[in-house]
């Protein structure tokens, strides 16, 4: 069984290999993929397995050849493309890369690593991510383990950056969750010098062989204090111990006072430009992963502004840690008031020193402050047990709102073909949609506020009757309000107004009296027949007339309100109305839906989901109406129906409401 398979496999392997080699030399992946695609064998071999194997075979050849870095990249690129075409298994490129980085020297790894970096989007896409993330992580970790943290800092950084790009932001596996310190970062320094024989009895000795080992005088006092600090920086929790704190604060004060005594020159400002540019070049270069602690270097280090900055920043970091509330600090890890006070002072002092340290001290100091502020945020984030960065919407917001986005006035108008216009406010919308034709609306009966001449003057005429025995002062015609209104009304609608133009100068009330008399004669030539009225009744009337305006207004308002209520009711279709429409529309409901601006998808949905046209129409109308509760549904529906030639239905609908 197995032997023919093996044979086939070997045959395919050879052929593939030759094609792959050819493709590699021509840099033509299509050739390879086309060949594999078209390759037929007798037993239906799993071509993916063959191609996987061939890729690795080729790699084996290339990897030993030092000059072929670019070829390695090409072969990986081929593999990626093959995976994309589903012609080899997704893990193949990863296995190949792992092999490469295992085999090559660090220098060459660094050259090839940009391939990994460039393809980060590929790795993140399917099917690569799921099958490859663990390979990549393992590969990177293996690589980092090989690198020296002090020699290959740039490469280390590249790998770290790559990993942070590869994994999602919420990936917490690389996080120092428990805020542990890097205890391995021990700074070793000369604690006790080898005892110098003869020093004790030096007075008698004038030998020249004395201490020639150190070429410069060394301040061992400072040296010890200075480097002893590093252990506190390594493990800040020591500071909470009382005796340790003493040491720390003493050493720190000494170092700070030395820094403040020994000011550094701003070289960049005094030196010539050429040197400055050289320095800035150096600036980019100078980086130490670890302090050099030889006692002979101390003096030079004190002269070095960068070195000073490192130390000062370390101070700021430890102060921040000591002050901050960190979830993983033990109960006993709290500062006394005195200590907090000291830290506060020291912090100020260090900040001052930092801003005094050239070059660009102020700027540097501000950046450090900014970074430390950030650090505080991270700390708080950890204290809050690392909440997710992606903010979930609150549950109630998850439902799409009735009005998800702000619509423009025109949108609605367009959607309903000018039948309905929404003005953003239900009341405005209602008013706008009262009547599609504004002129028509203005002519409506309800808008005629002008009283009829007869009605208006009825009272006055009555009062003018001497039989009514109304006293002069109570007569309407003597009321200013009445006079004014009467004149306005007369001017509009009575011929009597113009009669007396030839005799001007008549007081208004007299003039009005004349008119009223005339009108009385016109209206009722037999005014004698008017029944005499009791005084009380007349007074009542009078009062009523006096308040006429108010009453009128009130009445109007009432009317308006009634209209309001009416239209509020009418704006939305009731379920019975919907049913009515649905039943009468029949098979035309789809046309109605289209006219109403519902998308075809929805219409299809309604059609498929419900039995019969009526049910579908009912559901469609209900949904449409609920879609926008502020719309004047009835108005829109009516117009639409008219457009569809269903005028009868509109009448039916109106009568039903």
């Amino acid at each position, binding site marked *: 069984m197995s032997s023919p398979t093996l044979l086939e496999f070997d045959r395919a392997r050879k052929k593939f290999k030759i094609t792959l080699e050819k493709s590699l030399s021509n840099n033509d992946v299509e050739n390879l993929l086309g060949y594999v695609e078209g390759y037929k064998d007798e037993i239906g071999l799993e071509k993916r397995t063959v191609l996987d194997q061939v890729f690795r075979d080729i790699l084996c050849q290339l990897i030993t050849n030092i000059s072929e870095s670019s070829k390695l990249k090409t072969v990986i690129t081929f593999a990626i493309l093959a995976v994309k075409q589903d012609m080899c298994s997704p893990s193949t490129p990863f296995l190949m890369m792992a092999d490469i980085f295992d085999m090559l020297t660090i220098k060459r790894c660094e050259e090839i690593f940009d391939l990994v970096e460039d393809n980060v989007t590929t790795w993140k896409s399917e099917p690569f991510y799921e099958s490859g993330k663990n390979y990549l992580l393992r590969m990177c970790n293996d690589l980092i383990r090989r690198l020296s943290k002090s020699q290959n800092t740039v490469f280390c950084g590249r790998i770290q950056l790559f990993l942070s790009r590869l994994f999602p932001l919420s990936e917490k596996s690389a996080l120092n969750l428990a805020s542990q310190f890097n205890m391995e970062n021990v700074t070793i320094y*000369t604690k006790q010098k080898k005892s110098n024989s003869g020093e004790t009895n030096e007075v008698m000795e004038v030998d020249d062989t004395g*201490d020639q080992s150190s*070429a410069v*005088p060394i*301040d061992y006092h400072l040296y010890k204090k200075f480097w002893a600090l590093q252990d506190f920086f390594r493990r800040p929790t020591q500071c909470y111990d009382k005796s340790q704190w003493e040491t720390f604060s003493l050493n720190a004060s000494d170092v700070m006072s030395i820094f403040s005594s020994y000011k550094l020159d701003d070289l960049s400002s005094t030196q010539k430009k050429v040197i400055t540019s050289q320095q800035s070049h150096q600036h980019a270069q100078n980086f130490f992963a670890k302090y050099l602690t030889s006692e002979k270097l101390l003096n030079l280090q004190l002269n070095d502004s960068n070195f000073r900055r490192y130390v000062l920043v370390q101070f700021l970091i430890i102060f921040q840690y000591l002050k901050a509330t960190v979830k993983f600090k033990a109960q006993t890890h709290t500062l006394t008031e005195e200590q907090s006070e000291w830290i506060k002072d020291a912090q100020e002092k260090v900040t001052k020193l930092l801003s005094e340290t050239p070059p660009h001290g102020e700027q540097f100091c501000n950046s450090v402050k900014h970074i430390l502020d950030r650090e505080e945020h991270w700390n708080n984030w950890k204290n809050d047990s690392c909440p997710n960065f992606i903010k979930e919407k609150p549950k109630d917001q998850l439902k799409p709102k009735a009005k998800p986005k702000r619509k423009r006035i025109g949108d609605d108008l367009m959607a309903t073909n000018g039948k309905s216009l929404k003005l953003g406010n239900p009341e405005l919308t209602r008013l706008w949609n009262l009547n599609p034709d504004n002129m028509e609306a203005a002519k409506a009966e309800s808008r005629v506020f002008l009283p009829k001449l007869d009605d208006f003057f009825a009272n006055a005429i009555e009062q003018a009757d001497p039989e009514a025995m109304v006293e002069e002062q109570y007569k309407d015609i003597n009321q200013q309000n009445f006079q004014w209104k009467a004149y306005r009304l007369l001017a509009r609608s009575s011929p009597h107004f113009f009669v007396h133009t030839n005799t001007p100068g008549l007081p208004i009330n007299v003039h009005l009296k004349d008119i009223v008399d005339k009108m009385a004669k016109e209206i009722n030539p037999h005014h004698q027949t008017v029944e005499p009225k009791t005084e009380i009744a007349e007074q009542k009337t009078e009062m009523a007339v006096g308040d006429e305006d108010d009453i009128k207004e009130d009445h109007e308002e009432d009317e308006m309100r009634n209209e309001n209520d009416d239209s509020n009711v009418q704006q939305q279709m009731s379920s019975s109305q919907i049913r009515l429409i649905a039943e009468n529309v029949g098979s035309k409901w789809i046309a109605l839906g289209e006219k109403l601006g519902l998308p075809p998808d929805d219409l299809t949905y309604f059609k498929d989901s419900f039995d019969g046209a009526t049910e579908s129409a009912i559901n469609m109308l209900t949904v449409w109406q609920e879609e926008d509760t502020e719309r004047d549904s009835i108005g829109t529906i009516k117009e639409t129906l008219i457009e569809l030639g269903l005028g009868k239905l509109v009448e039916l609908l109106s009568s039903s409401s």
Partner: protein
Amino acid sequence: MHLKESRQACLYMLHNVVYDTKFSPCGKYLAAANKFGDIALFSLTAALSPDASDESKCPIFSFHVYDQGGIYSLCSTDIFLICAGEGDIQAYKWSDIIAKNPKVAWSLSIPKKGVFSHAEINSCVIHQDSSSMVLYAGAGDHLVHSWDIENGSYLNSFSGHTDYIHSIVTKDDGKNLISASEDGTAVIWDVRLKEAAQVVKPFENEKCARPHIGKWLKCLTVDEDNYWLLLGGGPTLATWHLKTLTPTATYETPGVAQHVALFHEDKILSAGSSNHLNHWSIAGEHKMAVPVNPSSIFSIDINHNSKSNKVLTVAGSSDKIDVCSNFGYTAFSLTFVPPLS
């Protein structure tokens, strides 16, 4: 005995003034002269060693030179340490001092003008070349005296100052001598002609004059190339161009007189009547003010005799002599007062 010691310790602690210090030719020791007429010897090697204790910062040996007053000036040759002050000039062999057995090798006295005149010597320098070794001493009698110390004979005096002399230096391989005096003038003497060649009067120069402090000159230094002259005191410290005798840069220390100054690499270190050691650029830019223990400073010196002990010492009115390994800060202090036992 114990009482006497503790009294002396107290006296030293409160009133000690160190007027001058000198490093031994081997560079391992420091001799400090104080106003009580004592010379104290400190071991720099011990004080700079990694396991230095408090004791190693105390004098390993001290001896009395003058009874009637202080030692104002020290100078050193390869063999001798020469003390000058309120009394005769006395020379001790370094080897004897280091062996804790000082003996006066020779002594010189300035010619007396009268029975009661005991002119003090404020400054002395030795000029040594292949043929001769001459000691100059600027004294309180307004004169600079000179001796040939090969044979101890008195050579001559330089007269011209109208007040006592604060400091003297030699320049141009001993062809010239400069003296600075209380009268406000610095005189450049031609040694061979034995007369004043030029006179500098900083108190008359508008850049330097500070009449409210005085016109006296104490600070006097010449750079290695004999190009610049540093003059200070009452007037502001300034570098004077020796060819033209004009001040080129001033070192402003408002209200503070500068007593001592020296050229170090491309910088000038100066100190005076305040507890700060100033670092200047030659151009007059103030670089640093290093706080030190002495409230008034009379001596600053760099140990060029031993590379491993190349430190800066700052001494003055204090029982402490500050030692700076890096010149920017005080590493530790040598002290006259032994720690309380």
